[in-house]
């Protein structure tokens, strides 16, 4: 059951083979067993969770169930959920109980989904290894010595370890896709503006976007149907007609379902810095796509190597301002002892934020400060346009762009924790789509030394349905996405015949 697709789970519930309460309890039992080790969840509340499951069972019984009704999901702890501890992985918010629901939470609630709990994450989503969380690191289910990636590391581990049916994540520079790659599952960052940011704790407002983290493209499509949609409370939410993201999946049958699809391969994504084994896996996946009828086109995204410098100006700048509200006045951490107002601010913030968050606040404050704005912030915004224009040019030659999601497989905990620059390079292939606001996806494409490798798909604006079709077609003919780690022997995970 724990490996069932969302569609399977939904059918099981509809046929009354299992109740939502039973299904939810099964996941809660697994969580109780494995979470103390993996640390994927930071907040659990079985009473609340089971009350939702009971309500879902009523909906199923009275015939008002929707596709996700009764299915247990994990929610990244970046989403405010009324009555739930909502910490964003920070000491600053360790005692914060959200008094309102994020739009995404409301959407899942309305769909009748069950909230299993809040998942661990890098503090304020700043990190690529989940090691910046105030609540401790998360184990990669494939190898407990390794990181799950970040910032959505808890959701990633929960999906990979089957501690939920699926999970939500957010992606500012790769925080859905890089952990999906490192933990071996399917994750999608939608076009900026498709999923409301209301109630999603802000990191870098112009880049943040929520998306699904799930076992397959099909599951992602079902979740997209729930997560997307116009929300008048978010000025950047796009008012577009509702889409059914599963609509094309059924067409991905036959020998060459992708006949005519043009796949762009940016030369910059296969250059120095990419692990050779990862490159090999990615090339094999692309070869599989050719078999499915696709043709490959060599393209160039000449400014893509600038995406890291641009990102590390813009994201910290926005973050430095977004995180100013954590001042110990109305909620959040306040220092126990302070002399005056200034001292209260200085101490509360110094104590409430971790080292990486403080670093980014300082960079952001610096690049926005008097005399530096033009050289850093303005310049970065100009190059941001060049990076976006590269994609506009590229999509004249191809329908979807493919490449690696991350430059390497999961690295060991502690390996990069003290080297921010090395850590930042984890997102070298994912950041450009955030800057451009384009959708990006990572799907399991194989293994390197027993660790999952992700293939990244990048699409044009609002082309999620096609990307999901393309991913689904691959998942019809491969089984990488169905492989699961052995949690009882996590360091001996080379799946048979799949090394």
């Amino acid at each position: 059951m724990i490996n069932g697709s969302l569609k399977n789970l939904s059918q099981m519930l509809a046929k009354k083979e299992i109740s939502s309460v039973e299904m939810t309890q099964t996941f809660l039992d697994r969580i109780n067993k494995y979470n103390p080790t993996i640390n994927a969840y930071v907040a659990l509340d079985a009473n609340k969770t089971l009350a939702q499951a009971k309500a879902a069972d009523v909906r199923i019984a009275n015939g008002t169930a929707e596709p996700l009704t009764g299915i247990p999901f994990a929610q990244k702890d970046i989403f405010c959920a009324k009555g739930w501890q909502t910490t964003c992985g920070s000491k600053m918010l360790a005692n914060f109980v959200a008094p309102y629901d994020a739009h995404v939470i409301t959407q899942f609630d309305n769909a009748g989904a069950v909230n299993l709990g809040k998942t661990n994450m890098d503090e304020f989503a700043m990190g690529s290894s989940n090691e910046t969380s105030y609540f401790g690191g998360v184990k990669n289910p494939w190898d407990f010595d390794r990181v799950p990636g970040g910032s959505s590391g808890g959701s990633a581990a929960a999906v990979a370890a089957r501690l939920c049916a699926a999970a939500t994540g957010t992606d500012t520079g790769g925080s859905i896709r890089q952990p999906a790659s490192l933990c071996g599952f399917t994750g999608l960052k939608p076009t900026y503006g498709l999923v409301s940011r209301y109630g999603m704790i802000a990191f870098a407002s112009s880049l943040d976007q929520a998306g699904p983290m799930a076992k397959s493209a099909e599951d992602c499509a079902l979740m997209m149907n729930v997560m997307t949609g116009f929300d008048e409370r978010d000025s950047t939410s796009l008012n577009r007609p509702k889409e059914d993201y599963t609509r094309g999946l059924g067409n991905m049958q036959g020998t060459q379902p992708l006949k005519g699809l043009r796949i762009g391969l940016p030369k910059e994504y296969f250059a120095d810095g990419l692990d050779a084994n990862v490159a090999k896996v990615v090339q094999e996946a692309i070869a599989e796509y050719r078999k499915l009828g696709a043709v490959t086109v060599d393209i160039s995204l000449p400014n893509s190597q600038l995406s890291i410098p641009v990102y590390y100006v813009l994201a910290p700048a926005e973050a430095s301002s977004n995180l100013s509200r954590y001042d110990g006045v109305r909620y959040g951490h306040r220092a126990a002892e302070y002399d005056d107002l200034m001292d209260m601010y200085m101490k509360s913030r110094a104590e409430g934020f971790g080292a990486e968050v403080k670093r980014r606040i300082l960079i952001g404050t610096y690049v926005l400060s008097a005399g530096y704005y033009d050289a850093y912030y303005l310049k970065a915004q100009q190059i941001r346009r060049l990076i976006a224009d590269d994609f506009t040019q590229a999509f004249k030659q191809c329908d979807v762009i493919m490449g690696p999601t991350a430059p390497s497989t999961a690295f060991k905990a502690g390996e990069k924790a003290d080297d921010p620059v090395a850590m930042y390079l984890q997102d070298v292939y994912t950041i450009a789509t955030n800057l451009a606001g384009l959708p990006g996806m990572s799907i399991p494409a194989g293994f390197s030394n027993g660790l999952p490798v992700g293939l990244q798909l990048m699409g044009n604006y609002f082309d999620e349905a096609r990307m999901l079709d393309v991913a689904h077609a691959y998942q019809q003919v491969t089984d990488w996405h169905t492989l699961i780690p052995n949690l009882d022997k996590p360091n001996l995970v080379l799946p048979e015949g799949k090394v």
Partner: protein
Amino acid sequence: MEWEVVIGLETHTQLRTKSKQFSGASITYGAQPNTQADEVSVALPGVLPVLNKQAVECAIKFGLAINADIPARSVFSRKNYFYPDLPKGYQISQFELPVVGKGAVTIQVPAVGKNAAYEKVINITRAHLEEDAGKSVHGAVEGMSGIDLNRAGTPLLEIVTEPDMRSAAEAVAYAKKLHELVQWIDICDGNMQEGSFRCDVNVSVRPKGQEKFGTRREIKNLNSFKFMTQAIEYETRWQIETLEDGGTIQQATVLFNPDTGETKAMRSKEEANDYRYFPDPDLLPLEVTAADKARVQATMQKSQNEEYLRYVNDLNMFPDDARAITSSRQIYNYFESVLAELRKIAVPTATQTQDNANAKSVANWVINTLGSYLNKTNLDISESPVRPEQLAKMLSKIFDNTISNNAAKQVFEAMWMGEGEADAIIEAKGLKQESDSGAIEAILDEVLKANPAMVEEFKAGKEKAFNALVGQAMKASKGKANPAQVNDLLKKKLAF
């Protein structure tokens, strides 16, 4: 050395909306602390701003009213600083691209001493939309301040002038003009006590003739015209004395203390500010199209100046009266209501000339008579116990010669005291004037017979004697005779 003061103003006008600039919280004044602070006002994690349509329309109205450039796109920026009444740690404002660009306001500077009154054009640099901060309340708990965020997020339009003013009188004339204007176009209630209209005044001095501006100090948050005059005069004197004593002026933010009449630098603003402005990523560019402007323009009534010119040119009103009537939307509305009521009552044969003459008289009654009653009782015209329709009825009785102007004053007094309508009061007090020419002639004959000496004087060429005779006749009629008729008939009788 002769010094020149240079003054520029930044005025925060609270816009007439129901809800906040970026959320659906109420902005009603005087609510219990933090009961109008929704999740956006409190800046809970994850909340986002959405701009108030009404506030944007107010800004467009203002731009149209001062003939300003209203750009197709403007941008919201974040002004970053820490303060307990600023819950997000930044204020959403407009920095590089404001909603209203350059415009101008013409001010009337009143005569002072031997200096005659004059007009001056004050250039407006810009006006931008922003949100207000909350309030710090002191003294509730020893050593602590209490933060009330009810006001946080209230829509403001900040109106910034060029440093065009050269005296406290000019600055106050501008502030008053702006105060009139924002109420005239109905974008602000103008309530200075509640902080709906607050001025920051930048003051610097320089030797007369020098082109370069001196270093300015900014007097914050002046909420009365009287304080503004006092503060500018004190600040100017202080700066001149400092310079003459060989000192220098440091750029500073100062507060005016009404008790001492002095300005003093704020301690909290000592630190050099680095606001780190950048475009707010949570908000998109604000677009104002030609169609938007036309739509707003269509909702706007005639400007103060248009109405002023119509009163002076078409209705032959005295310029001072016309200015006074158009100084406030409320006075204007009252005056126009009286005119409208009068037109309903008026005899159909009334000529345009009579109508105009009436308007002139109505203005006099509204500005001088009603005005002095309001002043004495400290009432607003909207609170006047004499309603426009009551005044109109009374005035119609003057115009149709039922009562004299003097009698009307008694009628007005009675109406003010709540003694009823004009008709009833005239009846009760017997104020109807004598317009029967036979009766008046009879009175005149008595007067002429009783005052032969005056008649002789008149015949000898003394004009004064004529007025004395009129006076005697009015007295004999107990003030009820129609003075115009007395004049006419007396002339005839003396012309034999």
